[in-house]
């Protein structure tokens, strides 16, 4: 194993995100009045998992050098759908969950089809489709609420603690990574997505299935955003078509992805990094509460942290040997 250096360099973004998260979480927990208890971890996990899922959704697309500005809206739409269909008996609820994920798949498919076959820029496409998805959410839930038969047992199972210790939402996230992310990363379409992100022309010349790779990336993105929406409904027991919420999650998902070491230019990074980026970002937001500061300062604090975090990306300027490399 003489290539460990390269393997390490490849994972640098993910490891940095992990380090940032660990530092932030240590500060958070050590200043928390209750300390490091399962309850504190559970609350933190539940908040973090929502963003982590949306950030994963964003990662699939960003890896292909695209961007999905509709993730927040798919997230909201899925949550509104879930507040209607996750009801009754276990069998009914399972169908409901499947319906929610199907909604996300369909939204992702629409994005993908327009980007791949319509040959439009992803940023414009997803802005427009995002408006449409939000319209659908507003149609479903003009006012926040849920059906009385909402299956709160299922919701509690996913937001509670497994074996009385491990936060169930984190376990679910880990399962998703193992069952979806890693197989995708090792599959042909997964590799192809990275190739497309690095250089579309080179990928085409090498016979990589670029269309399929893009399409699958957008579909998976929609699916993960909808799973995020499902969890949102699990936490709140209700659905709300909130424009502000959708925009916030879209914004934070990009921030989390960048913190997690995924390059916005495509072709590098991992969803695992994005997860730690998301958890770190959430922890930073919560630090204010631990230090008992006025919540009014939270948006500014988060904004400044965001600016500082993205400015870290400027560190690569010190490695530039040729000024021309500044202009890619």
């Amino acid at each position, binding site marked *: 194993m003489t290539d460990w250096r390269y393997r390490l360099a490849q994972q640098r973004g993910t490891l940095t995100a992990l380090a940032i998260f660990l530092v932030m979480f240590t500060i958070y927990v050590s200043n928390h009045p209750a300390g490091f208890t399962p309850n504190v971890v559970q609350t933190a996990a539940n908040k973090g998992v929502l963003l982590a899922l949306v950030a994963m959704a964003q990662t699939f697309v960003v890896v292909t050098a695209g961007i999905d500005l509709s993730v927040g809206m798919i997230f909201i739409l899925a949550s509104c759908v879930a507040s209607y269909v996750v009801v009754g008996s276990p069998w009914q609820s399972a169908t409901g969950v499947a319906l929610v994920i199907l909604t996300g798949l369909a939204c992702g498919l629409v994005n993908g089809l327009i980007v791949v076959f319509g040959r439009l820029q992803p*940023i*414009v496409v997803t*802005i*427009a*489709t995002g408006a449409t998805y939000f319209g659908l959410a507003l149609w479903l839930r*003009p006012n926040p609420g849920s059906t009385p038969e909402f299956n709160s047992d299922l919701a509690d199972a996913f937001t509670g603690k497994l074996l009385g210790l491990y936060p169930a939402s984190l376990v679910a996230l880990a399962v998703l990574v193992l069952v979806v992310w890693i197989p995708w990363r090792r599959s042909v379409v997964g590799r192809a997505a990275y190739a497309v992100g690095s250089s579309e022309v080179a990928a085409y010349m090498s016979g990589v299935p670029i269309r399929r790779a893009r399409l699958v990336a957008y579909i998976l993105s929609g699916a993960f955003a909808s799973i995020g929406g499902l969890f949102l409904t699990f936490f709140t027991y209700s659905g709300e078509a909130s424009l502000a919420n959708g925009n916030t999650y879209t*914004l934070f998902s990009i921030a989390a992805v960048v913190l997690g070491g995924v390059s*916005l230019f495509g072709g590098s990074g991992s969803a695992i990094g994005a997860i730690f980026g998301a958890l770190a970002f959430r922890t930073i937001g919560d630090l204010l509460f631990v230090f008992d500061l006025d919540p009014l300062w939270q948006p500014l604090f988060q904004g400044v942290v*965001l*600016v500082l975090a993205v400015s870290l990306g400027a560190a690569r300027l010190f490695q530039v040997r040729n000024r021309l490399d500044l202009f890619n």
Partner: protein
Amino acid sequence: MATENLQPVRARFQQILRRFDPAVATAFGCIVLLLLVGSLYSSNFLSPEYLLQQLKVASFLGIIATGMMVVILLGQIDLSVPWVVTTGAMMACAAASYGTAGQILAIPFGILCGVALGLMNGFGVAYLRIPSMIVTLAINAVAQGLMVVYTGGFSPRDTASGAMRFLATGTTIAGIPHALIVWAIVGILVVFLLSRTVFGRAVYAIGNRERAAYLSGVATQRIVLLAFALSGALSAFAGELLAGYASKAAQSMGDAYLLPAIAAVVLGGTSILGGRGNYLGTIAGVILITLLQSILSVMQIAEFGRQIIYGIVIIAMLLLYGRERLAR
């Protein structure tokens, strides 16, 4: 003899034909179509009063889209519009509450705040080399944070100055709204800037290939910085006009302008990748978006339906003429 005389005429004709952009023509065609559809629905749709009213509403979007267009021509994007608009409005109103001097300085002060935020965007993009999408999102968050701290989370009590109201709501003798005249002046200045100055040439050059522009001796980083400052200034100015229109500033008053501004620029045939596009197209795009919104509200379609149709129409129009050529 005759053929010799014809030569320059033919060359001139070809030059005009070459300038004739199919995207702009399609956009104007869509405007005519929308007016026809509208006039079928209501007879006073083609009345001068209604059209002038629409142009007045379009002016606010038009001024924002002007700044957005310059940034998009660079191949960048400015997602900080929502809170730069709000900051401009709130700061101008705040200044207006300080006696006569405040009333006079309100407009310059608001614009100055916009310039400051724009310079931060430009610095991040040009000198720190961070993708504009993430820098402007972060600065948007900072501006939001600042305004939340300043207002305490409520809409401020300060009202707009007389000059702001005069510009936003007044009309000249012929019934032409002042706002429209302001937009026209801004438009003429920017057209001059883009087509007759070194700055404008440089903007197009950088949008096509920043490396080549740099090697040709263009101070690319300074140009990018200035372009973002211009965008910030115009957004803040539009915010002041909006505050004048409603006679006060409000939280999240700018949220409704980001997507329409991008959509207007792109529908006007400006390439989102930069380097291509003209102002005539942006005018067409702005009027198109405004008319579309107006027709949807005249037809008394509920908010959700408007969002859905809005997204679908933008995608449909882009599919009509915004498609990229294949990369290979």
